[in-house]
């Protein structure tokens, strides 16, 4: 067995992929990180406190891991799901009954819940260790936006099963928008925005209408939330995550005492 491994390691194919031998020397361990696209997210060396679980809680890493789980399971779900009022509910129901290994929706939903929790705990840890302090102020801000995006991703996904739970939870959530100052038709100041007695902000033109593509949660909302959930928010989140990780490196790595 060992010989077989040795032989594989000597092939041109293996050597074309991994440009270092077994990482058991400092030189090869360095190369293992530097010459690997995925590992080079990490610095070659990290503070010992940075790998101490009771210091970091591993929550940032887990959040990223859960994001990847969501991406993979989400992609698989998209094969089976049509975002229309006619099919959405049936497709979700069929996932349970007709699709072999139909765990994807479960995994997707539970990982989504977990991701919200891990994001909060990550932020909790970062606050309690004062890791937002200079030079990491900007990265904290990127993190806050990522937190909001996580909630928005979860919220838009909540609607997609198109059952009573989904529709009414989203109705409760988006009803707030009609009270937006100036921009919602039941918000303070909205009545001031009128030209010649004609209201500019009414139920058919306010910010909630834009959000829902209608006066209530309907088919237009489903499509809108679907597109945001599967394309819009993940793209923004992925971009910001790249910045977030890059800035961790640039700001001196995982925080530790100065």
């Amino acid at each position, binding site marked *: 067995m060992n010989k077989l491994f040795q032989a594989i390691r000597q092939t041109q194919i293996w050597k074309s992929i991994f440009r270092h031998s077994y990482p058991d020397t400092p030189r090869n361990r360095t190369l293992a990180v530097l010459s690997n696209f995925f590992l080079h997210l990490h610095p070659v060396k990290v503070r*010992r*406190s940075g790998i101490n679980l009771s210091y970091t809680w591993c929550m940032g890493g*887990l959040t990223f*891991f859960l994001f990847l789980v969501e991406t993979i399971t989400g992609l698989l779900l998209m094969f089976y799901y049509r975002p229309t009022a006619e099919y959405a509910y049936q497709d979700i129901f069929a996932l349970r009954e007709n699709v072999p290994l139909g*765990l994807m*929706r479960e995994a*997707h939903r539970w990982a989504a819940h977990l991701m919200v929790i891990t994001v909060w705990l990550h932020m909790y840890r970062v606050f309690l260790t004062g890791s*937002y*302090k200079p030079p990491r102020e900007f990265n904290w801000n990127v993190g806050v936006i990522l937190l909001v995006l996580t909630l928005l991703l979860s919220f838009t996904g909540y609607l997609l099963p198109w059952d009573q739970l989904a529709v009414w939870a989203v109705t409760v959530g988006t009803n707030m928008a009609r009270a937006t100052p100036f921009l919602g038709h039941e918000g303070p100041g909205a009545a001031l925005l009128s030209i010649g007695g004609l209201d500019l902000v009414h139920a058919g033109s306010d910010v909630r209408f834009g959000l829902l593509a209608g006066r209530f949660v309907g088919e237009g909302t489903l499509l809108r939330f679907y597109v945001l959930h599967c394309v819009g928010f993940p793209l923004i989140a992925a971009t910001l995550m790249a910045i977030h990780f890059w800035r961790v490196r640039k700001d001196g790595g995982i925080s530790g005492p*100065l």
Partner: protein
Amino acid sequence: MGDAIKNFVDWLTQPTLYFTLSTVAILAILKYRKYTTKISVIIGTFVVGIAFLAFAWGDTNFNRIITKPDNIPIIILLAAVLYFSWLSLRRAYLNDERMKQGMPPLEGDAGKQKVHTWPDLVYVELICLVLFTAFLLFWSIGVQAPIEEPAATARTPNPSKAPWYFLGLQELLVYFDPWLAGVLLPTFIVVGLMAIPYIDKNPKGNGYYTFEERAFSVTFYWVGFLLFWISFIILGTFLRGPNWSFFGPFEYWDLHKLAPEMNVDVSTYFWVKLLDMPRPANIFLRESPGLALLGVWFFIIPKVLERPIMAKLYDGDRSNLVRYHVMMHLLLWFGLIPVKMLLRWTVDLKYIVGIPEWFLNV
């Protein structure tokens, strides 16, 4: 015996008591951290928690809520938050004791040493990844994702609840109108979080757990996160039933339980009850007492506290005046929440300023 415990818990969890006791508990845990950070405390907490869960499991009403698939994450959240709050406070306490004796914090020595990413970090990541994947798979096999009846816009379920992570905001709707609870306050939460690194000029406590070096910051975050976010989610999930009425964990969700609402505006208190005359027709005159109160809250208080707080936080350096006022403004909005809650409980206050004509109610 069992019924007595259930009635006691139902009584204990009514919003006024629940909130007051949570506040006292959080502050006491921080204050007596020497004792609350002992390992036996967290073990004891979990033992009591599990024992309670086992006891309550048999109750029909409790069981109905706790076994909803979407409520499992909230149990996980509660356990995780309890554990990690304890852990952080324990490390903060240990660090504070170390630093009093002139030693570096626990993270101090470990922060200076460096280890190779491969294998030291990579294998920690791998273990976490494998454990979490296994956990997620077991969870997915064990519990089916909920699916209710198909969407019907004509049939409103009662209660209609937002997704669990927004239940803190939905709870605020009891005390504030949607433009505050659903729009302005969430915006201030996000803006406030983003402003933290620019407001907090305390250079200490960067990269290690501490309480004493950052007593205000840590207390603030504990109160904000644990009290006004997590405990509100627990309240919203387990203790709010039809019509958003309060129900104890062992209480049956009776559709007809309606608490009579007889809340009164500040303007009514002032004109009708105090001066014994009808409320003036002019909106500004009518609401002038409430506007005056808000004026004191948002403008006089920051001015009065300017000198002492500036001296404490920024060594009286006046170039930090903008920091101070941004912070005070955000804190006062935040402080409006418990103030309004207390006023509601004690004097049935509805609105401080109530101008329904313009949808402008505070």
